[in-house]
């Protein structure tokens, strides 16, 4: 166990000096209506966010978790900026329901927008309060004081006091008011800098960084045993042979939930394998034919929701009508780290260490599932591999919790196997998007119709209401009922995220059809429905550009009045040297894709150049350029890393990935049956940021997924003359298209 963790477990009272100021000093800063601090999501007390710690440190506590996206470094930068301290004085506390603010999930590329704004406010208020107190102590006007790295200066000269002295030994429990003035942009020194990530040194030097690195005295090891699909019913198992195996502490069975705990890890793995041999499972669901998922989506029972409607479609006369259908398969998050969790039940409190995306929602869901009171459950975040949405982390946490309840006072470390993760995680839903547009006599889009078929994109077990989404809750003897598919409305949207084209189109009508019962477990995967919608819209824009014989940049710009969108595309055209690439049937081609994520967030345009080997259909990605406008950027290198990673991951989804399943369940169980992009397949990447310091900061983590997919399909079209509309765009599909003169 790391020493910081140990301190947290023991209670950190001795180490921490809380802010404390006389009420009179604070009165002027305290909102008359403290309940109104909406932005802080109910976490209005300043010491929830900021603590001053002995030894010249300031601890920032947030509810958003790190999974490699660099959010905690960005939040530390915001705090350092507002408090006028150096980065080396900032510590980010781990997210723990015992003391962290409740910021729900870390998702939807919303962390800078949400948590960043909250930290800025809390830190700005803390600085105000500290300065006010310094002014009182020094008997000087606040206006003459300034702060350098936590030391108070008077007209630029040291005063001999600093934050740590001001607050020493005092308590700080003040409500953050609504009207806090943050630092003016022109004075920024830390925000906007590519500050190195705080977590990287520990990771390269193999210090305690991950959940797997947590070792506790007396810790036992657990494994779960599941059928070939997670909803299979356990009909029969021989538990007695395994219970007698060396090192086995307990076989846990509750309905169809089956797990084993042993002293040593290998004993648990061997016992789990032995248990699996004697299991008889009955699969509950019948699976549709994996190769015809899009037809299945259309024929399955669904509910239709209107997404957008503008004018009636018949009001504009189109002279040329074009239509197309696009699809994507079920996709796995496929973290490099299979899910894991540690749980400890001491008879009174259940503590769960998890790498899930939301500790508070997880706490509610686990408490409800296990019949405990919320106060009896504590969830502590501990990092693991990247998650990219709602993967198996929450399920593993609840599995571990259920097991720990059977073995009081022993920390239980549960590790899912590679196959557990591939079979058990909720996938990003397959989708089908049909588009139809009319062009007028000038070659402009007159109208646009779009229909989307999809399963839900959100089955997060958020609190008691969502607990039925947890695997254990569904498997146990008295299962919880599974909540109905969640439909996320516009403007954010789930299946319909980014379903409304940003382009100027006089008449449009868009509907979504949500399939009521998914054949596989599904939930949020990075960018949700935006990936397929942007793939469809941006492929279709290319098809329309070809139909109107206009260059794809020009065609988009001709339909785009949003100035920031135009700038992103224009800049992409400048940097991409697209004109120098031979095209159409030469085997080389380029393509572009663009979107404003959620139509609310970052603007991202992607250019891809690639080659198609006409002999085997193999695609080689040569070069990609991306241009991004995310408003005010906290950490430019962090933004670049997110876009680079997004492009590589989206290229992998687009060219290679598909969850395979058949009548016997899920067949994607390892990296052979679910291959992803490797080093030799990754293109050269170049990301340019258009900085807009005057605009609000926007999340970027999901902005590149859709544009990359479309850029690849559009480039394949230019390289091979064939338009591929069904992801994954595999070599096999390209080859058969190239060989088929009828393929259009």
């Amino acid at each position, binding site marked *: 166990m790391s020493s910081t963790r140990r301190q947290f477990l023991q209670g950190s009272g001795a180490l921490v000096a809380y802010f404390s100021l006389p009420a009179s000093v604070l009165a002027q800063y305290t909102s008359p209506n403290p309940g109104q601090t909406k932005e802080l999501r109910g976490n209005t007390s300043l010491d929830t966010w900021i603590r001053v710690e002995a030894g010249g440190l300031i601890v920032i506590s947030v509810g958003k978790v790190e999974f*490699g996206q660099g959010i905690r470094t960005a939040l530390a930068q915001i705090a350092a900026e507002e408090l006028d301290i150096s980065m080396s004085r900032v510590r980010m506390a781990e997210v723990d329901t015992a003391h962290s603010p409740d910021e729900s999930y870390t998702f939807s590329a919303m962390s800078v927008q949400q948590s960043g704004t909250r930290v800025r406010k809390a830190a700005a208020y803390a600085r105000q309060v500290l300065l006010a107190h310094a002014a009182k102590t020094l008997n000087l006007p606040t206006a003459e004081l300034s702060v350098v790295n936590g030391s108070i200066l008077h007209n630029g000269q040291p005063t001999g006091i600093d934050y740590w002295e001001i607050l020493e030994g005092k308590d700080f429990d003040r409500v953050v008011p609504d009207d806090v003035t943050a630092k003016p942009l022109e004075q920024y020194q830390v925000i906007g800098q590519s500050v190195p990530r705080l977590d*990287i040194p520990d990771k390269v030097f193999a210090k305690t960084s991950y959940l797997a690195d947590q070792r506790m005295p007396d810790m036992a090891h657990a494994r779960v045993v599941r059928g070939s699909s997670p909803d299979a019913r356990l009909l029969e198992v021989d538990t007695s042979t395994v219970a007698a195996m060396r090192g086995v502490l307990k076989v846990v069975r509750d309905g169809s939930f089956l797990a084993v705990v042993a002293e040593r890890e290998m004993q648990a793995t061997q016992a789990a394998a032995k248990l699996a041999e004697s299991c008889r499972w009955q699969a509950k669901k019948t699976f549709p034919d994996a190769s015809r998922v899009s037809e299945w989506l259309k024929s399955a029972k669904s509910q239709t929701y209107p997404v957008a409607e503008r004018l009636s479609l018949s009001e504009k006369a189109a002279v040329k009508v074009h239509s197309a259908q696009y699809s994507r398969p079920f996709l796995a998050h496929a973290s490099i780290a299979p899910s894991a969790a540690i749980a400890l039940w001491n008879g009174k409190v259940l503590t769960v260490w998890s790498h899930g995306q939301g500790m508070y929602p997880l706490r509610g869901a686990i408490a409800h599932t296990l019949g405990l009171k919320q106060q009896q459950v504590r969830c502590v975040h501990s990092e693991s591999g990247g998650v990219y949405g709602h993967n198996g982390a929450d399920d593993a946490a609840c599995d571990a919790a259920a097991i720990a309840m059977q073995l009081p006072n022993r920390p239980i470390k549960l590790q899912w196997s590679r196959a557990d993760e591939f079979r058990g995680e909720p996938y990003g839903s397959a989708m089908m998007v049909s588009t139809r547009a009319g062009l007028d006599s000038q070659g402009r889009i007159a109208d646009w119709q779009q229909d989307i078929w999809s399963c839900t994109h959100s089955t997060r077990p958020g609190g008691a209401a969502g607990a039925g989404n947890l695997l254990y809750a569904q498997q146990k003897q008295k299962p919880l009922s599974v909540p109905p598919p969640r439909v996320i409305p516009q403007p954010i949207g789930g299946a319909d995220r980014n379903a409304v084209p940003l382009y100027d189109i006089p008449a449009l009508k868009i509907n979504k059809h949500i399939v009521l019962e998914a054949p596989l477990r599904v939930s949020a995967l990075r960018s949700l429905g935006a990936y397929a919608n942007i793939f469809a819209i941006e492929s279709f824009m290319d098809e329309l550009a070809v139909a109107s014989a206009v260059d794809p940049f020009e065609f988009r710009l001709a339909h785009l009045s949003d100035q920031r969108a135009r700038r992103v595309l224009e800049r992409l055209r400048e940097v991409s040297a697209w004109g120098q690439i031979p095209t159409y049937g030469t085997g080389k081609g380029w393509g572009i894709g663009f979107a404003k994520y959620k139509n609310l967030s970052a603007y991202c345009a992607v250019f891809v150049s690639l080659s198609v080997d006409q002999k085997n259909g193999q695609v080689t990605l040569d070069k990609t350029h991306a241009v991004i406008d995310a408003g005010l950027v906290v950490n430019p290198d962090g933004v670049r890393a997110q876009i680079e990673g997004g492009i590589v991951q989206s290229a992998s989804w687009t060219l290679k990935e598909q969850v395979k399943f058949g009548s016997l369940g899920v067949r994607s169980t390892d990296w052979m049956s679910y291959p992803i992009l490797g080093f030799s397949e990754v293109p050269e990447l170049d990301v340019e940021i258009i900085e807009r310091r005057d605009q609000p900061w926007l999340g970027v983590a999901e902005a590149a997924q859709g544009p990359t997919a479309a850029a690849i399909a559009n480039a394949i079209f230019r390289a091979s003359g064939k338009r591929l509309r069904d992801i994954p765009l595999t070599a096999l599909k390209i080859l058969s298209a190239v060989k088929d003169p009828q393929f259009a």
Partner: protein
Amino acid sequence: MTINFKLNDKAVSLDIDPKTPLLEALRNDFELNGPKFGCGLAQCGACSVLLEGEAVRSCVIPVAAVNGLNVTTLEGLGNQQNPHVLQLAFIEEQAMQCGYCSNGMIINAAALLSRNQTPEKKDIDKALAANLCRCGAHPRIVRAIQRAAKSLTKDVT
């Protein structure tokens, strides 16, 4: 059974079921964090360690197989006080997102650099062909390895 080997330059001995995967012995018995569990199937590279200077997958090697041999983990390559050039380069290039794959990348790159101090991009691609990164940090990882290689040759001349 007692297994004796050299771990990060120190002679160690361990009484253990000889079939235990080396990865488990390193993580659970020696409490090392470098090698990670990613698949247990020799498919991802997260568990890589150096065995007699060669990168191997500790998840599928029984601990008995290293009896009498030299094992080096990420911890043994270098530390904050005395870092390996690759560790420095990974920091300088910010060559990771989640970093769960980084152990495998650094260990395999270390083996590559011991054979070839001036690797080209294609040599790096080849050396890391069976190392998976789900976050898409590949371009940065390649840059970090090239930076480390450059600093090595600079040291020599």
